[in-house]
């Protein structure tokens, strides 16, 4: 029996090695026959295309373009994950609302969005919303505060003025004082039994100190208004319209899945918990915040992680409307005659690393949640 087990494993390993060898043999031969390199030296060659919104010239090297692509992918992930969590939790809770219309509207949202392919939603947002905005020259300008056209969205931004450094220090100090106030209110509440209102207190203290500092230093932060200058937008924070199209579409799509998870997790909390919370006269919000949510979250976190990973992988669909994330740049580079096998190998490696990083971060958070609640 042991011999048989060993034999089976040797055969399996051997088969994998042989297949890998044959494929490798074909790969190197075919690449050479096509006059393509078999190593990764080509990464230092110029990219040869213009990457919108990156400030990178077509002469920049391929690996720098890939880095820009990774940055653009991460820009979607970092902004998208918090957004989709907020929307998803809100809709999920709304589906269980006692308000009939709220529950039905949330249900309608979920049932429509999660049954349409995400790529189609991206196209729809892009063609039905983004491209309906006027062209650059006729941009919508709302009081020099917000400029929108079918290619860019620019909002007013902040710039550092003299004394910005000292002001940052004052803000840090205000944060410390606010923390102390928070602690003091908590202690007092535990001693006297009065309500602490610690959030309002801390926020108030922080705002007052920051405001005094701001005025005393003569306005260390200035506004940078976006300006339409001929064919370009200057100043402020400028984002590509394609970025927002992908972001909105994928957030709406993924949030519909998160909402279902949140709803299921809340329903999985035993009914007795809600009844007990009612019996000790907690308000509906307190009940959700202190009794139901902590228990529901524990059930919800693993499937929500997999939704985060799905979101991350779906950002690759931005390729379809020309947002320069890493898949699009790979696609363009291959189109420029660079060897596809190596490029795709790098691309897959990048996604694996991002996926691993996200599951690592969320797993650490998850472990802390589980410990706290147990």
């Amino acid at each position, binding site marked *: 029996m042991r011999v048989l*087990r060993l034999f089976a494993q040797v055969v399996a390993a051997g088969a994998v090695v042989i297949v890998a060898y044959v494929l490798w043999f074909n790969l190197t031969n075919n690449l050479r026959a096509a006059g393509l390199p078999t190593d990764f030296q080509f990464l230092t060659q110029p990219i040869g295309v213009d990457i919108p919104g990156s400030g990178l010239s077509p002469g920049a090297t391929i690996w720098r373009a890939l880095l820009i692509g990774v940055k653009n992918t991460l820009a979607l992930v970092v902004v998208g994950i918090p957004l989709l969590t907020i929307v998803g939790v809100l809709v999920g809770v709304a589906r269980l609302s006692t308000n009939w219309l709220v529950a039905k509207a949330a249900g309608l949202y979920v049932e429509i969005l999660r049954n349409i392919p995400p790529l*189609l939603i991206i196209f729809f947002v892009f063609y039905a919303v983004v491209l309906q905005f006027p062209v650059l020259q006729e941009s919508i300008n709302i009081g020099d505060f917000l400029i929108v056209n079918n290619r860019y969205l620019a909002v007013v931004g902040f710039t550092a003025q003299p004394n910005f450094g000292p002001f940052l220090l004052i803000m840090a100090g205000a944060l410390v004082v606010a923390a102390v106030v928070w602690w003091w209110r908590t202690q007092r509440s535990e001693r006297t039994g009065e309500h602490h209102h610690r959030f309002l207190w801390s926020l108030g203290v922080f705002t007052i100190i920051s405001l005094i500092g701001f005025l005393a230093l003569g306005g260390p932060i200035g506004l940078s208004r976006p300006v339409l200058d001929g064919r370009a937008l200057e100043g402020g924070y400028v984002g590509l319209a394609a970025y927002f199209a992908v972001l909105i579409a994928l957030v709406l799509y993924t949030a519909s899945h998160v909402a279902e998870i949140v709803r299921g997790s809340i329903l999985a909390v035993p009914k007795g918990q809600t009844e007990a919370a009612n019996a000790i006269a907690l308000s509906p919000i307190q009940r959700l915040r202190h009794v139901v949510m902590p228990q529901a979250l524990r059930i919800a976190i693993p499937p929500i992680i997999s939704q985060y990973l799905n979101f991350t992988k779906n950002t690759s669909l931005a390729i379809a409307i020309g947002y320069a994330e890493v898949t699009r740049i790979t*696609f363009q580079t291959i189109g420029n005659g660079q060897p596809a096998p190596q490029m795709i190998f790098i691309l897959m490696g990048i996604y694996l690393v991002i*996926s691993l990083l996200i599951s690592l971060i969320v797993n650490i958070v998850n472990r802390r949640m589980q410990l706290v609640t147990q």
Partner: protein
Amino acid sequence: MSVETPVFEELTVEVEPARGPMDWVRKNLFNTWYNAVLTLAIAAALMLALLALARWLVGADFEIIRVNLRLFMIGGFPADQLWRPWASTYLIATMVGVVAGSLAAGARDRASEAGVPLIGTTFGQIVLRFWPIIALVVIILAFTTTITPALLTIGAAVAGLGSYYLGRALPRTVRRWTWLIALILLVGAYLALAGFGGVGWESWGGLQLNLFLTVAGIMFAFPLGLLLAMGRRSSLPVIRTISVGYIEFVRGVPLITLLLAGAFALGFILPRDLRPGLVTRMLIAITLFEAAYIAEVVRGGFQAVPAGQVEAAQAVGLAPLKTMRLIVLPQALRATIPAMVGQFISLFKDTTLVAILGVSHMLKTTFIVNSQPDFLGKGLFVVTLGFAGLVFWVGSYTMSRESRRLERRLGVGER
């Protein structure tokens, strides 16, 4: 001395009955001030959305879909071969009918054995269950210019209904082979399109190609996924490592990277005289991708089989392979049915991705038709995308509802 048992007086809880519709509205929509605000805000938003939708529906020009309906449905399939898609539609309708009838007969027999009265499904319930599909078929037929498609569709419905009753009437011994009948009909449907001088899948398009990629992707990926799932549970470290490595690698990368590999890199690793067409390469990529996900679904099914089942099988002296085939697999696969439907839906939506690589299915068609001379520059993307979205929505929504129904019926997760 007798112990006086305390007598609890039964408290009659006064449940306030709803007094008419006004009372219901007050209780469910305006019970607190913030609910009242929410109700009004959402009602206003929904009204505006409905109004905008209605206005768009009235004003939009659907000529682009009317003219290109065939392109949306079957792509560039030769016009003189139209009988082929229809023949395959009839075969699939027959297959669905036979399978549904056979399942219904099984339920009937089980109910009569258990002595439970069988609650039959009424026509009204069928309509309620499948209203999106029925509505979609009506909408599509409304876009046709001749009466023939409508007549042929009614014919297909009749064929489906007839085979449903045929499936119900099948004797038990034949019913055991329903899956084989279904497979034969499915292969027949494929041959009707591609066999006997027909058109191979490389030239298919439209919705037909989406459906083909979904069905074929799942069918080819299933055996591979089953092997991977068993490999993942294997006690042999080498086989387990290979399986886990494959599954986790594929699940960590987006489908689009595999499709890119299929489109641009697969040609490099295959021998030089083997040059599969684009659709085939997409199908290979989809199969490799889907196998990893199916493996995870099947693993979930394995976990649903209690360990006692395997121990009992060992106790009665079944060999490992027989234990797998007769005890574990039947229970595990039954538990995976709802998740498999979920996987099917997800792949159905994912088939849209091959449009990025230039395969002309349903979604790609929405762009092709917009570059036709008659419609160029008219900005009809919203119309065509809306039509494609409706088709995908109906398919996914119906399947996900059926999957949830199945989940309740099978009682998965209730053990």
